[in-house]
C-alpha cells in the first residue's frame, strides 16, 4: 500500500475516533496539534488504527510515535510485509 493511500485511510480513522469530520492530519501532525488528542483518545486511536489496518503494533513501536509520520512509517512497514 502506498503512503498516500495509508494517509488517506488514517485520516478516516482519526475522524471516526475523534468524531470530527474537520480533522486532516499530515505526517508532521502531533498530539499537540489536534484538539482533544489526550491520553484517552490516544489509547482508543491506537486500537482503532490496529483494527482498521489489521495489524498489531509492538509496544516499543508505539512508544516511538512522536507524530503521524512515525505512525505512517510503521503502518506502511506492517501492511506491506
Amino acid at each position, binding site marked *: 500500500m502506498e503512503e498516500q493511500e495509508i494517509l488517506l485511510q488514517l485520516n478516516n480513522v482519526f475522524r471516526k475516533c475523534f468524531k470530527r469530520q474537520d480533522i486532516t492530519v499530515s505526517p508532521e501532525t502531533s498530539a499537540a496539534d489536534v484538539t482533544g488528542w489526550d491520553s484517552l483518545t490516544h489509547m*482508543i486511536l491506537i486500537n482503532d488504527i490496529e483494527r482498521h489496518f489489521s495489524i498489531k503494533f509492538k509496544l516499543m513501536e508505539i512508544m516511538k510515535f512522536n507524530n503521524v509520520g512515525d505512525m505512517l512509517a510503521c503502518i506502511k512497514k506492517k501492511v506491506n510485509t
Partner: protein
Amino acid sequence: MNINIRQATEQDKDFIMTAIIEAEKSGADITSYGAIFSLSGDAVKTLVSNILDEGIEEQEMYIPNFLVAEVDGENAAAVSAWIEGESGMTSNIIKANMLAYFLNADILEGAVAKLGLMNEVNISREMGALQLECIYTAEKFRGMGLSGQLINEHIKRKKAEWLSVDKAQIILLKNNSSALMCYEKVGFAIVAEKKCEDEAILKVLPCDTKILMERKLNE
C-alpha cells in the same frame, strides 16, 4: 530500629506491585484500573506485572524509579519518582501507550464512558517537574514518617542529578486526608483541584475530586 533507604531492584518486584496496587486503591476496595476496565484483582496484578516487565521509564510503574525504605531489613514503604516529559512525551501518553498495548480493543471500548469521567478529574503534570507517585507504606509501619523520608530522599537525589528541577508535584484524591497531611508535613501545598460533577465518577474512584500539591525546590 534500623531504617535503610535504597533504590528498588528487580528483586523488589512483588513489593513494588503491592505498592502500586495499594496506592492506586486510595482507600477503595478495588483499583481504578479494575473499576475502569472491569478487570479482576488478578487481571490488574497481571497488567501491572506486564508493565513493570517492559521497563518503560518516565512514568510511575518502572522499578528503578522507586526508592524503598527497609525497617530492620524488611520492606516497609516505597515511593516512585520521575522527571515529567524528559523525552518530550507525557507520562499520561506513555501509560496510554502501555494500556493500549496490553488491553484488547473490547476492554478499551467498554471503558470509554468511564475514561471520559476520569478525564474530567485529570490534572496535567508540569513538564520538567519532579513527579511523586505510588506513595505506599505497609500497614504495620505506618506512623513512622517513612513516606516523608522517601519523598525527601527522592527530592535530594533528583536535585543532585537534575540541577534545573525546581518543583515537585503530587496528584492525589481529595478524600485521602492522611496522605494530604503527610505531604503538607514535608512542604507540599495544594495548588489546584479538579472535580467531576457527574456522580457516576464514584463508581470509578472513591472521591470526585483530585488535587495537585506542589513543593518549590529552589527556596
